[in-house]
């Protein structure tokens, strides 16, 4: 029964994104907070991917 309740909780949403959407109006642009978040996250991840150092190989690895 406990497992069932846990599974049931997992199958539902912890954060309910249904309901009225939130939108930002900027000039002629209208964008949802959700989409803006995704786009900003993409830019952030891109910048981090370029800036974060990649692990160095051991000296003996080069051939």
């Amino acid at each position: 029964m406990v497992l069932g309740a846990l599974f049931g909780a997992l199958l539902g949403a912890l954060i309910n994104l249904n309901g009225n959407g939130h939108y930002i109006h900027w000039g002629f642009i209208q964008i949802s907070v959700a989409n803006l978040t995704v786009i900003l996250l993409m830019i952030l991840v891109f910048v981090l991917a370029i800036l974060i150092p990649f692990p160095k190989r051991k000296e003996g690895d080069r051939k």
Partner: protein
Amino acid sequence: MSAERAKRRRFNPDRDVREWKGAYVPYDIVKEGFIAFLAVAVLMVLLAVVFSSPDEPAITLKRWSIADPVDFAQTAITELDGTSATATYGPPYNSTPDSSQHIGFFEPEQWFGVHQPVDTAQDFVIGPLRTLPHQPATQAALNVYLAAPAAQQNAWTTAYEKAVANATEVGGRLHVPAGRYGPVGVIIGSLTDMAQTGGLDGTLLSEGGFYNTNYTKPLLFLADGSYLANKANAEHLAGDQWGMMNETGNYPGQAWLWLYTMWYQVAPMNTSSNGDLEVWVIMMVLSLGLIFLPFIPLLRSIPRWTHVYRLIWRRHYRELASA
């Protein structure tokens, strides 16, 4: 390209490259792929557990006609008299003259023609009502209407349209002010009743056969009314709200459609009756531009000018400098 031509061509740093003759380091791409597979699985499960996914139930003709019988009747009369958006759409549904979108002589909608035929009067009103058994008043009204000359039918439908503009809903039932609209009042009233029982949903779908999976007719009927559009507007899904990018509620939608929907917000596409075709042509040109970017001077130089590559390959440049 011939070897001689290749020799004659100057080195262009935005097109050509000195192939790598330097060091190689061990790299396990299968292990990398496996780790990525697990990482994305974890990400996906987390997002699904935390946010789930939206599923707003479909609108039925039954739900529409119960929630707003006035809008339903106002739409139904335009289907009967052939003035609805679907009835006047043109190809691929019917042959309404001068209805296709075009840019100059370019009119592909007209060229491809009618291949999804819809006769709104027959398919949305008369046909469904003819399937009703034990409805002598409805059948009689249909017989009178169909036997009358076109001018008389037009007079009745025009009069009904004027009257139904002031229609009200009384206890969920349609109430249309009296007028000289002959049998049309009974016809539209019966259709509204049929929709409210759920019979119209099933009949419109099964016109294509018992196992039909083609929802063209019920969807076109729904889209001709205001109920579906009002709900979409409330959810910020309309075309002039950048709706193509959006999802119901607070879910992220299709952010990758940002450029496609942007053109619908700007002149002249936002007010043009050929806006859809204009936007498609723009997007086809831009898509081809992206595919053929390596051939386009100036654009293909942007990576070299912006120097982002110096960050990406900074370790390589550092090693070169110290060598």
